[in-house]
C-alpha cells in the first residue's frame, strides 16, 4: 500500500519538477483566462481577443507562443521574476508601469467605464455619482488606480476583487464596477447578467504588452513591437477586433 503511494508520489513530483528548458524561440505569455472577451475559457479552451492577437504575433515573429494562466494580480510578479515573458491582459500604460517595464506600442485604445445593475443607470451616470457608494474593481488593475486618483476617492468605498466583479454588481452587493468600456459592452450583450453601462467612458486608456526592462526583455519587445506595426498596417489587428467587438479598438481615434 505504502509502496504504491510512494511510486505515485515520485511519479507526480517528477512530472512537475522537470526543469523547463529555456528555449529562446518561445514567448511565454501570461494572462488571467478570466476576462471576457479578451481572455477566457470555454470547454477548457483558452480563447479571446488577446489569444488571437498573440497567435498572430507568433506567426509574424516565428516565436512559439506558450500561454500561462494565473490570477490577474499575480501576473506582474510573474513577469518580474521571469516566469513569463509578457502579459497579454489589457495592461494599461501608466507612468509607474513604464518606469518598471519596457512596453510595446499600444494595440488597444479604450476607456474606463462605470457599469451598474440594470435599472440603476439613471441614478448613476458617471464616476461623480460613485460618491458614498461601494464600487468593485479588479485587484492590481489600472481601474483601481483610476478610482483612487479621483479627487473624491476618499468618499468612495473601493472593493478589490480577484474575479467575478460582474456577478457581485448584478447581485446588488456593490453599487457598480469599473472596467474597460469594450469588454463591459460585450459582457452586457453576451452574458445573462442584468447590467447596464452608466454614462460615458471617463478616462482614455492605452493598452500594450509589457516586457522585462533588461537587455533580453527589450530585444524581445522590439521583435514583438515590429510585428504589431506590421499587423496594424496589414489590417490583421483590425480584423481580429471586428470578430470580438464588431468595431476596431486597435487604432487611435
Amino acid at each position, binding site marked *: 500500500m505504502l509502496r504504491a503511494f510512494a511510486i505515485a508520489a515520485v511519479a507526480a513530483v517528477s512530472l*512537475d519538477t522537470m526543469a523547463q528548458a529555456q528555449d529562446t524561440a518561445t514567448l511565454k505569455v501570461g494572462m488571467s483566462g478570466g*476576462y471576457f472577451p479578451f481572455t*477566457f475559457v*470555454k470547454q477548457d479552451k483558452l480563447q479571446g481577443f488577446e489569444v488571437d492577437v498573440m497567435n498572430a504575433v507568433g506567426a509574424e515573429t516565428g516565436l512559439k507562443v506558450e500561454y500561462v494562466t494565473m490570477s490577474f494580480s499575480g501576473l506582474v510578479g510573474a513577469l518580474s521574476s521571469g516566469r513569463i515573458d509578457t502579459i497579454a491582459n489589457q495592461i494599461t500604460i501608466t507612468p509607474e508601469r513604464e518606469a518598471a517595464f519596457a512596453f510595446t506600442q499600444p494595440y488597444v485604445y479604450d476607456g474606463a467605464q462605470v457599469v451598474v445593475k440594470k435599472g440603476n443607470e439613471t441614478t448613476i451616470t458617471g464616476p461623480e455619482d460613485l460618491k458614498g457608494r461601494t464600487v468593485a474593481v479588479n485587484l492590481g488593475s489600472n481601474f483601481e488606480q483610476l478610482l483612487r486618483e479621483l479627487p473624491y476617492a476618499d468618499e468612495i468605498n473601493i472593493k478589490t476583487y480577484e*474575479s*467575478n466583479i460582474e456577478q457581485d454588481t448584478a447581485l446588488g452587493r456593490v453599487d457598480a464596477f469599473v472596467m474597460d468600456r469594450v469588454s463591459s459592452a460585450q459582457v452586457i450583450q453576451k452574458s445573462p447578467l442584468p447590467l447596464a453601462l452608466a454614462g460615458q467612458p471617463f478616462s482614455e486608456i492605452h493598452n500594450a504588452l509589457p516586457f522585462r526592462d533588461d537587455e533580453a526583455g527589450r530585444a524581445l519587445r522590439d521583435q514583438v513591437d515590429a510585428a504589431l506595426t506590421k499587423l496594424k498596417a496589414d489590417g490583421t489587428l483590425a480584423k481580429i477586433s471586428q470578430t470580438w467587438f464588431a468595431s476596431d479598438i486597435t487604432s487611435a481615434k
Partner: protein
Amino acid sequence: MQTLDVNYMLGLIPVLIGYVPLTLGMALASMAFALVLSSLLAVERVLRIPVLDQAVMLFISFFRGTPLLVQLFLFYYGLPQLVSFLAQINGVTAAIMGLTLHFSAYMAESIRAAIIGVDRSQWEASMAVGMTRGQMLRRIVLPQASRVAAPTLVNYFIDMIKSTSLAFTLGVTELMGATQKEAAGSFLYFESFIVVAVIYWVMVEALSYGQRLLEQRMEKAYAR
C-alpha cells in the same frame, strides 16, 4: 430567477472530470509523503529523543496552529524572497509541500495516540524475547497501531483531497481553478459550482466506500 442551463452543465462535466487526475494526484502524492513524515514524527514523539523532541513539538505546533492557506502563501510567495532557488518551485510542488507538512502535523498526533494505545503487554513481550526498541516498533507495535490509526488517516486523506482546491490560489489550474475560469467565461456561476461540488462529493463517497472495505479486511484477523 433564471432557469438552469442543463446543457451547459452536461457539457461541463467531462471537461472538469479531466482535472480529477491532477486533484487526486496532488492528494495522493501529499498523502504518501505525509504518511512517511508523520510516522517518523510520531515515533519520535513516543521515544522522546532530547532536542529533536522540542523541534518536533514546535513543528507540530506551528503547522496545526496556522491556516493551510497562510502556509501555502508562505511557501509559494513568501519564502522565494528569502531563498532565491525556491522561486523555481511551481504551484503544484508548493501545494504538495504545504499539504504534506500541514497534514503531517495532524497525522503525527493520531499515529502517536495509536502507538500509545497498543497494549503494554505487547511492548513487554517484545522486550522479553530480546528485541531492540527499533525492532519492537517495526515488527510489533506499528502494525497494530496502523489498524487503529487507519480510519482517521483515511479521514485526513479525504480532507486533503478537498484542500487541494486551495492550490488554485497558487495559480494552479486544478479542479476548482478550472471551474472558476469556466464560470468567469460563461457567467453561469450556479451551474459551474454545483457541478464541481458534485464531482468532489462523488470522489469522497467512492473513497468512503473503499474505507469500509479496508476496515472489514483489517478486522478479519481480530474476528472472535
